[in-house]
């Protein structure tokens, strides 16, 4: 009976441990993007994965960084453990205490502190910073695995070797190292595992050309994970599973073989292994090195583009590369504010923020004036969208798209009678089925509009009132505060209604025909997103070429078609079929947006108030 309970208990726990993994693996074979319903078996995601350069590159970065970090950490850590063992009590205490810090302070703190260090040292985030950080948090695991083995070591073993004629060097390599080998190997494996599994530290230390898989996954997690990622992870998981099994079998075999070994045969020198390891190393180091050297040789050839997630037809990038010979490094953000933070510490050539953020960047001198002579296609942009409030002199920006925030709702669940106003978000009938934006400007903007105030108000009382309204919603009707996850939750019917941008509404309505869109009568946010060149851009020429390319009629049209947002180019608008030109979702009518405003840059004081109110509201 007791046995049974034990078995049962273990079974339950292991099911708990493996359920998510099973789900992940299963859905890598699902013939649909859905993560909750099964649509038949397919290997498409695996095929697509092998065609996705970004995923492959990140996989490569992950493994490369893990191998290099594990090797360095193992060497440094083993040497350190041997040295520490020989130290006096006091020095040893100091060493071990510091050694424990990375393990006992959280990885969030580690990540943040590395970020500060590297920005202090003016190291650009990249492979180097990533590897330095990984080595640092891997070493303690090596030290802690080697130390016990050293303590177990027969004190006289080293002397015995000297006694038998071995020089100190020989004694070290032939006796000490082989005897602590199990500890070294375990330490190395742990270092490797931890490096591969790490997300937090990488998140704070990876540059945009060296994002490991976990960081790429994170940028996807916030909106929707492509089953391609499930496929990559499944492959990685299975690969490691096989590796572990092979190691296990070899160990058992070696153990059996050892018993039969002829006496004097010199230990099969691990030359084979060394060669293999060497080849692997060359492959691993060679890749990025070639990349780096190629990179440094053509430093001027890279264009770093930083855009909203799923906000560009990425096949255009290839087209651009083919036409101009530049290489595009494309990364994404999910809010203007997080873009702003990143821009403080990293260099990009083209960024695509929204109106009010453009104004802020201009104010703070973070973007540079654009030489429109180098962007002939700028002339194609409809004058309606130039010289707007955020860039009245039209010196710093090139409009990319425009749109409005509206409500997207599911006609199956929401009564026609309840739509038309922001009121829907606070309608108790739909408690727990609606969601709010997860950033202060957008969320408070909606509340302000609902209350009949300006979205750009600097009146603290009005802002407080708006914040109270959101707090109320949080306590009563909101299922949660989301940003990009809305894109997935609405079509999956996890949510019945939520505010979102009209361009994405088009995409969602394609996925789930029950969805519909309206612009609330109280008015809303009308936004224009524009391309800018940051002051710290390294490749202004490339940036100009890229912007010009994106402004060409063909590219702009293809892009508008793909992302569903409205283009600021007259010709593109005119190229659209009539039903789209008149579609209130694609191109909301003038009267629909009559009450709407664009966000303006706020005073520092109000910005602070926003942050404070938001913090209060999140308690």
């Amino acid at each position, binding site marked *: 009976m007791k046995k049974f309970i034990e078995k049962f208990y273990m079974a339950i726990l292991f099911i708990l441990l493996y359920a998510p993994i099973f789900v992940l693996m299963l859905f890598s074979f699902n013939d649909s993007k859905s993560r909750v319903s099964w649509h038949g078996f397919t290997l498409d995601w695996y095929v697509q994965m092998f065609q996705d350069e970004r995923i492959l590159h990140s996989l490569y970065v992950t493994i490369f960084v893990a191998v290099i970090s594990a090797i360095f950490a193992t060497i440094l850590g083993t040497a350190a453990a041997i040295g520490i063992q020989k130290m006096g009590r006091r020095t040893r205490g100091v060493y071990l205490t510091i050694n424990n810090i990375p393990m006992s302070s959280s990885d*969030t703190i580690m990540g943040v502190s590395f970020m500060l260090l590297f920005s202090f040292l003016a190291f650009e985030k990249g492979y180097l910073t990533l590897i330095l950080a990984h080595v640092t948090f891997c070493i303690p695991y090596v030290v802690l695995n080697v130390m016990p083995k050293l303590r177990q070591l027969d004190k006289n073993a080293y002397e015995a070797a000297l006694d038998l004629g071995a020089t100190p060097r020989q004694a070290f390599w032939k006796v000490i190292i082989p005897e602590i080998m199990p500890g070294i190997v375990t330490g190395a494996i742990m270092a490797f595992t931890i490096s591969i599994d790490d*997300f937090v530290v990488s998140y704070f230390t990876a540059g945009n050309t060296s994002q490991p898989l976990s960081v790429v996954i994170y940028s996807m997690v916030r909106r929707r994970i492509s089953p391609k990622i499930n496929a990559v992870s499944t492959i990685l998981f299975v690969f490691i599973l096989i590796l572990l099994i092979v190691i296990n079998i070899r160990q058992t075999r070696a153990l059996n073989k050892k018993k039969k070994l002829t006496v004097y045969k010199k230990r099969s020198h691990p030359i084979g292994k060394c060669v293999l390891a060497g080849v692997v190393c060359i492959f691993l180091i060679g890749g990025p090195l070639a990349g780096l050297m190629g990179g440094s040789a053509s430093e001027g050839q890279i264009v770093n583009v930083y855009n909203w997630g799923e906000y560009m037809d990425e096949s255009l990038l290839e087209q651009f590369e083919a036409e101009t010979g530049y290489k595009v490094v494309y990364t994404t953000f999910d809010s203007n504010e997080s873009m702003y933070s990143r821009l403080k510490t990293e260099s990009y050539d083209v960024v695509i923020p929204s109106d009010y953020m453009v104004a802020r960047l201009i104010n703070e001198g973070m973007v540079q004036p654009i030489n429109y002579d180098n962007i002939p296609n700028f002339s194609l942009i409809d004058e309606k969208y130039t010289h707007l409030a955020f860039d009245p002199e039209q010196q710093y920006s090139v409009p990319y798209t425009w749109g409005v925030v509206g409500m997207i709702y599911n006609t199956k669940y929401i009564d026609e009678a309840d739509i038309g106003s922001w009121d829907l978000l606070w309608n108790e009938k739909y408690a727990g089925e609606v969601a709010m934006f997860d950033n202060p400007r957008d969320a408070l903007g909606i509340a302000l509009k609902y209350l009949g105030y300006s979205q750009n108000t600097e009146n603290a009382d009005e802002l407080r009132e708006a914040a109270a309204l959101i707090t109320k919603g949080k306590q009563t009707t909101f299922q949660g505060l989301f940003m990009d996850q809305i894109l997935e939750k609405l079509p999956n019917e996890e949510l019945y209604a939520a505010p979102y941008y009209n361009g994405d509404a088009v995409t969602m309505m394609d996925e789930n025909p029950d969805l519909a869109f309206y612009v609330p009568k109280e008015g809303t946010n009308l936004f224009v997103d524009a391309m800018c060149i940051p002051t710290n851009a390294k490749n202004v020429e490339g940036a100009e070429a890229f912007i010009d390319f994106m402004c060409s009629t063909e590219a702009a049209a293809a892009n508008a078609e793909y992302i569903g947002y409205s283009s600021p180019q007259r010709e593109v608008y005119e190229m659209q079929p009539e039903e789209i030109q008149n579609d209130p979702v694609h191109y909301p009518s003038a009267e629909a947006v009559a009450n709407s405003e664009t966000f303006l840059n706020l005073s520092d004081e109000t910005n602070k108030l926003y942050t404070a109110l938001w913090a209060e509201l999140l308690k």
Partner: protein
Amino acid sequence: MKKNMAYPYGVWMVVFIVCPILLIVLYAFSDSAGGFTVENFAGIVEYWPIFVRSFVLALISTVICLILGYPLAYIMSRQPPQRQQLYMTLIMLPMWMNFLLRTYAWMSILENKGFINQFLNQIGLISFLQNHFGYTLDYIPLINTSGAVVLGMVYNFLPFMVLPIYTVLIKLDPKIIEAAQDLGAPMRIVFQRVIFPLSLPGVISGITMVFVPSVSTFVISKLLGGGKYMLIGDLIDLEFMGNAYNPQLGSAIALVMMGLIFLCMWVMNKFDDGSSEEGGLML
């Protein structure tokens, strides 16, 4: 000559462990212009409820991990060696699947239309509740609750509780247990008075290894808590990489969190004095 071998790591530690932490301290006490200030700490007061929530949720997760993990470690330690190896591998293996993905997969399981609710619908439990108890929803809300956040923490950090306890338990001399039985203690007492006290070092290091990452995690709450249950980790992320961009305030928050964590560890170590060195987290 062998002492020298630790010197490279000594230098490394100073540059990559000590300096970064000093930088956090430096930033925490400076304003955006670089002058000295303590205002950042005043700013933290506003966020106090987030601190409280983080510590409470982390504490709950740690306790659950302990309750679930100890028996597991104990059962494991009493298996034949071959079997132990297998269980160890099984516990470590999930770590090879990316942690974000594992957490993400829980979304599929917990969502309103996720697997659990699908299952409950299938067996008719939901309609039963609706018909007989006037339940109005057609699902049971699981995701975007603080329970889901705790589940995410427990799920991700359970192995960190099991491994150190297991390591200590297998090192226990079986003769000690026999001796206790020989002295007339029934198994329950043997456990209470001998096995558990002796495994305390493992328990302590397990608690540390679960509590610390739970307090500071910043992804789990985002994915499973629906952004409604902000934790300190999210706050730090917000200040360094997110909407707020204020590394000085972020550093102050990190510093206070670090201080609180060390305080917790210190209090806990008071309970168990002799175990500092053999904290035994390793395999």
